[in-house]
């Protein structure tokens, strides 16, 4: 039986439909909740979020449904009860993550914790539930702290995640694919097959020249083109933005080289950001409104699109223990 943990309970991978594999209902750095400049009323939150998810569901009818993988880790404003209500009312499957976006988003209690403790935290959230919600995490988030260098705490989290992934069968996705060698070493030491890891943000503007794609692909890892839409063509692009054409060509190049089963794509958009302004107009629906048309225009056929957005993410998200 193939199972994927969503916030409303496990579902068969066959039900996932089109998957946006790295998205955020709302992301904020820990502490941003203290700064009223970012506060919004619950009415505003739902108003900003529900139409985007409903549109995502409408666009996805031909795929039999859709899944929104929320990449917001512990301490970053992850709000599972809210996700449950959104999922129940819009029909979008939502997968919640355990783990941390990076060491610099792990608050002191976790920054002081051992690998064993972090592993137990992740395993608990995957097998028992997140807090009192009863919802089980379906994926583990790990990442590199700001500054493009893997830190000791980052790696402690990677190692705990690898152990939790092996025990529970959920996959791992990373924030940033830079300075990847220490991460590859940890996964090798722990014996985690690299097809269980999506090395994310390999496509962003500031990571170019810093991602060892050869090592990731050679080891069997997956590469995340998951910041689609943070285009420098936007009126006010973020610092990690990239020219649309350049990102698309990068993606097509890997597909052309035969790596289609090792790439996944997403938009990393915030439905309603929690601790930063967000990027006006950028939503998960970039996948339908820009990316898939761009791919079709480049001659990527429906079967290939299905493979990239439906079959491969289903394979990735399916609980897999050996």
């Amino acid at each position, binding site marked *: 039986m193939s199972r994927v943990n969503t916030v409303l309970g496990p579902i068969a991978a066959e039900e996932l439909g089109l998957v946006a594999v790295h998205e955020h209902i709302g992301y904020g750095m820990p502490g941003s*909740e203290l700064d009223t400049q970012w506060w919004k009323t619950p009415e505003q939150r739902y108003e900003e979020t529900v139409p985007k998810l409903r549109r995502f569901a409408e666009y996805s009818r031909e795929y039999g449904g859709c899944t929104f993988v929320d990449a917001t880790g512990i301490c970053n404003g992850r709000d599972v009860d809210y996700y449950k209500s959104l999922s129940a009312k819009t029909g979008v499957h939502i997968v919640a993550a355990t783990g941390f976006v990076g060491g610099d988003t792990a608050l002191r*209690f976790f920054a002081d914790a051992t690998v064993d403790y972090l592993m137990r935290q992740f395993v608990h959230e995957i097998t028992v539930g997140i807090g009192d919600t009863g919802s089980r995490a379906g994926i583990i988030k790990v990442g590199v702290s*700001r500054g493009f260098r893997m830190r000791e705490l980052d790696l402690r989290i990677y190692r705990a995640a690898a152990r939790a992934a092996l025990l529970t069968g959920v996959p791992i996705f990373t924030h940033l694919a830079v300075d990847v060698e220490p991460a590859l070493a940890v996964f090798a030491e722990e014996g985690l097959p690299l097809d269980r890891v999506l090395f994310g943000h390999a496509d962003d503007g500031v990571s170019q020249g810093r991602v060892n794609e050869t090592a990731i692909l050679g080891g069997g890892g997956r590469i995340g083109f998951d910041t689609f839409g943070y285009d420098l063509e936007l009126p006010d692009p973020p610092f990690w933005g990239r020219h649309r054409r350049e990102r698309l060509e990068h993606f097509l190049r890997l597909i052309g080289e035969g790596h289609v089963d090792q790439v996944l794509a997403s938009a990393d958009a915030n439905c309603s950001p929690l601790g930063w302004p967000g990027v006006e107009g950028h939503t998960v629906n970039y996948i339908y409104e820009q990316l898939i048309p761009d791919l079709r225009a480049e001659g990527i056929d429906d079967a290939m699109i299905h493979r990239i957005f439906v079959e491969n993410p289903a394979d990735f998200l399916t609980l897999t223990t050996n």
Partner: protein
Amino acid sequence: MTTATSRTVNTVLGPVPADDLGVVAIHEALLSVVPGAEHAYDISMDRAEIFEVLAGKLAAFRAAGGRTVVDSTGMFHGRDVKLYEALSRSTGVHVVASTGLGPEEDLGGYFLTPQTDPPTPWPAEKFADLFGREVTEGMVVPRVERRRAAGLVATCATRGGPTPTDESLFRGAARAAVATGVPVSIRYGADPLAELQLLLDEGLPADRVVVGNLDRTEAVAAGWPAAVAERGAYVAIDHVGRNDSDHHIRDAERADLVAQLVAAGHAHRVLLSGNAIGVAKGHPDYELPYAHVLTAFAPLLTSHGVADEDVQQILVANPRDLLAVR
């Protein structure tokens, strides 16, 4: 200049006349949560249970003659303003809550590695604004609402000495205090005089500052309590009741220290506290009654020759003068 008697203190239920504070436990914690521990899979945050424990401790404090408890843990270490309001209402104990952050390792990434390029940590002026608004606009219930004004700004330096961000926190705390009239509590990291000076350099009068941790062994050996008093700041001998720590002096020595400070004319600069923790989450319990200073240590002061009027000065008048908003 207004007199202390016409001044008010910011409590979680609103301003109260400074003269109503009575005996004050000045450097304590109500709910103390290591940042992040509220998300830990093995830590329960049963609100009813937390309330019951805190209410019991506050009631015992009141029964012993205490009137006011100051939660000096800042805005990000478990502070729960609505819980404190309900506790104050039900026990009749005044609760003064604090704004402020620190040391650096207790901060979230929002302040340390913001989503900017490069990720420059927050400067003093941004902390000043954050803390100042907690006085002028009210303390936050995160992402929900603001409540009453904070009664003080509490911050703390990294042991070993302030990091650059700790320094920004200290300067920001001082600026917020200058702008709003509430005092600042600091817990020093390495050198209380140098760290106090950071606040004074921002134009904050010394008598608006309480310097904590001054009953550390090294502080007493260096003569820092008297030196801080001579600068005009309040000296917090704030681990009263702790007699099993290699890093702190014992109560008998604390009583000697207080007697010396009083004899040197510093009675109006001494504050006593136990650093009691009502409920601890993510770190060990510390079961010291809030009334410990009042019921156990005050008699010890008397036996060390401190006059009753000086004891009253220390337990009632000094906290009142410190906490009264200027």
